[in-house]
């Protein structure tokens, strides 16, 4: 550990003033060449570990955030913010779990048409972005979530989204999924399902 205290001060100021989380390369680019970035970040991380703000790594980048146990302090004046509509919330979750996904795939999954406003709201919130195009007829645009999405929801990686079983275990699913094979297994007289129907 050879973190020069002056370099630590610089990194601290940079991370504090930055409008976005900073990657180690971003910090290295602004500090003197001989600065030992990992040692500096390690030191800062440890230093702020038990403070009111912590230095945390989000989406592979570093930023100061209020200590999670103190977030309630900042909450009671959040009422100015708007709630997402149910449609927007559901669309956002579908995109997060299925990205990259096209508009028509979202509609297919949700079983309803997507009104223009819903995507606008999600774009406005800075949570979704166009990712590319499907190599299918019409080359439809695919969508995915943004880094801001990860930061907002405190995820380091999209793969950190809980899987289905975890959702169930966390009580987020009130009922068991209506089983795919229940009929088949319980009763012989049930009509066999066409497997192609389930695989979208």
């Amino acid at each position: 550990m050879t973190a020069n205290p002056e370099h630590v001060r610089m990194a601290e100021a940079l991370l504090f003033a930055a409008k976005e989380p900073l990657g180690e390369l971003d910090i290295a680019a602004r500090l003197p060449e001989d600065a030992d970035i990992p040692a500096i970040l390690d030191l800062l991380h440890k230093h702020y570990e038990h403070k009111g703000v912590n230095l945390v790594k989000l989406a592979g980048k570093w930023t100061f955030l209020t200590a999670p146990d103190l977030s309630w302090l900042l909450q009671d004046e959040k009422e100015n913010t708007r709630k997402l509509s149910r449609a927007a919330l559901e669309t956002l979750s579908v995109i997060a779990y299925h990205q990259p996904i096209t508009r028509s795939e979202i509609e297919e999954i949700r079983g309803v048409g997507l009104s223009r406003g819903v995507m606008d709201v999600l774009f406005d919130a800075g949570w979704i972005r166009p990712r590319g195009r499907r190599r299918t007829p019409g080359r439809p645009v695919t969508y995915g979530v943004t880094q801001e999405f990860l930061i907002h929801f405190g995820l380091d990686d999209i793969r950190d989204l809980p899987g289905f079983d975890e959702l169930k275990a966390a009580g987020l699913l009130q009922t068991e999924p209506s089983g795919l094979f229940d009929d088949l297994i319980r009763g012989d007289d049930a009509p066999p399902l066409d497997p192609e129907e389930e695989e979208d």
Partner: protein
Amino acid sequence: MKDNGLFNVSDRLDAEEAAASSGPGLVVDLDGYEGPLDVLLVLARDQKVDLLKISILELAEQYLAFIEEVQKLRLEVAADYLVMAAWLAYLKSRLLLPEEPEEDGPSGEEMAERLAFQLKKLEAMRTAAEKLINGQVTGRDRMRRGRPEGVKVVRHSRYDCSLRELLQAYAAHKDRKGIKNPLRLMRNAIYTVEAALERLERMLGKVPDWVDLTAYLPKNLKDPFSRRSAEASTLLASLQMVKEGQLEVRQAHLFGPIEVRARREKRQESEDE
């Protein structure tokens, strides 16, 4: 008046000083000045003494010469410059002539002092403005936090939504829609009909007689969901193979075990393939 940049104040003053020191006769463009007091202040700096000690008489002469020069060049001179010229000419005469004791109002000396004081005040404000803008300006010299969470309003989330809400929305939606739209994340857990078919076809040749269908299930399925999936897919695969004439299937009694075996005439063929 010209709007000079916020941070160019000192440049501007330097330029004025340079111009002023090269003699008033050369500085004839009134556009650069903010009124007669501004001209006087620039001229006064030429004397390089404390403004309270400058020679107002000299200053008055300089100003009058300056205005005369401007007029010679037929440049338009605003009225307030001329008013100042008239006032300075009057002051000059008061200063030069002996004071008459019975005259009303302030003496020439008093007027000169007041003028010097007013110039001093203006200069003080110029210096102060410069110091102010060269001080530690917040957002320029000292930065605020770049991403404040906000105690009042949360800037980074005009739309408020917690991870829990997001997950709940997904789970609820999933629940509502049932299995018609399986989750992609479930797919790993699903034992597909294709996989069951492949496994059944591969293993069939090795077992000569009636065998419980469950024997063909993969052995490594711990998760009950995956196991049920495998059971169903294997049954579907067996029915498919019956349809293709590769397999025979029987069930001795209701809810009894389902047994399968390869059709004898087909066994040979499938081995050849």
